[in-house]
């Protein structure tokens, strides 16, 4: 049996605001072509799927959201994200995955999550990205607390897929 080559997966947790478009472009220090894929050592892939989630401006109660606090389990969160991304990438046969997630106190409009998938075809790229996003919402230990009207409320569960 041929030895399986690990698929490049990068997981980042950001304690402060991050710019998902800058990450996709490869970051300020990236001098290679191909943006984030180039930074992972890939030639420009034929297909990429990107998802960016941002903090909404309204709390679950309907009131204005002042901030969203994201708690995580240091160590386990990174391991879960890496494992989920590796498994999803292998299932769909994609070339590379980047997951960036915010932690700490975020303000409305700031990026919460970026999932980027590179593949040879659009189908696997989009399917892997969608599946990984749903998996991390349920299987990676993050907890959200909405701050509205000066009160913090823990969010139990996820918003609908829509």
């Amino acid at each position, binding site marked *: 049996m041929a030895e399986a080559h690990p698929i490049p997966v990068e997981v980042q947790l950001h304690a402060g605001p991050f710019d998902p478009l800058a990450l996709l472009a490869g970051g300020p220090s990236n001098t290679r072509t191909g943006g984030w894929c180039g930074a992972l050592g890939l030639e420009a892939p034929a297909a990429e799927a990107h998802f960016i*989630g941002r903090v909404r401006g309204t709390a679950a109660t309907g009131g204005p959201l002042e901030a969203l606090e*994201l*708690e995580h*389990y240091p*160590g*386990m969160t990174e*391991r879960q994200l890496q494992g989920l991304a590796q498994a999803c990438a292998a299932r769909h046969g994609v070339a590379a995955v980047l997951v960036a*997630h915010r932690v700490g106190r975020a303000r409305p409009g700031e990026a*919460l*999550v970026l999932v980027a998938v590179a593949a040879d075809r659009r189908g696997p790229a989009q399917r892997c990205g969608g599946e990984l*996003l749903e998996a*991390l*919402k*349920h*299987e*990676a*230990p*993050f*907890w*959200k*607390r909405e701050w509205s009207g000066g009160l913090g409320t*823990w*969010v*139990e*569960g*996820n918003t609908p897929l829509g």
Partner: protein
Amino acid sequence: MSRAIGAAHGAEAGLTIQVRLFASLREHAGWDARRLALAAGTTPERVWRELGLGGGAIPATVRVAVNQAFASPHQPLAAGDELAFLPPISGG
């Protein structure tokens, strides 16, 4: 029922673990980490009950992690384990 948990500093035998709580569970309990001395064979389910973390058995919405991986609430714990109780996850 004999108690399975003792204060870690008073343990003479058995095993010592660390228990961690997160988010709403941490705030309800008023602590985030504790070292505990346990009798051999103690499970996360029994730790939950004996710490009085609420509702008798572990609620269906609370997940267990041992050494930073999801685990069964009925898995016997080992010396040095890090046991965590995780309230409903809401990432992404």
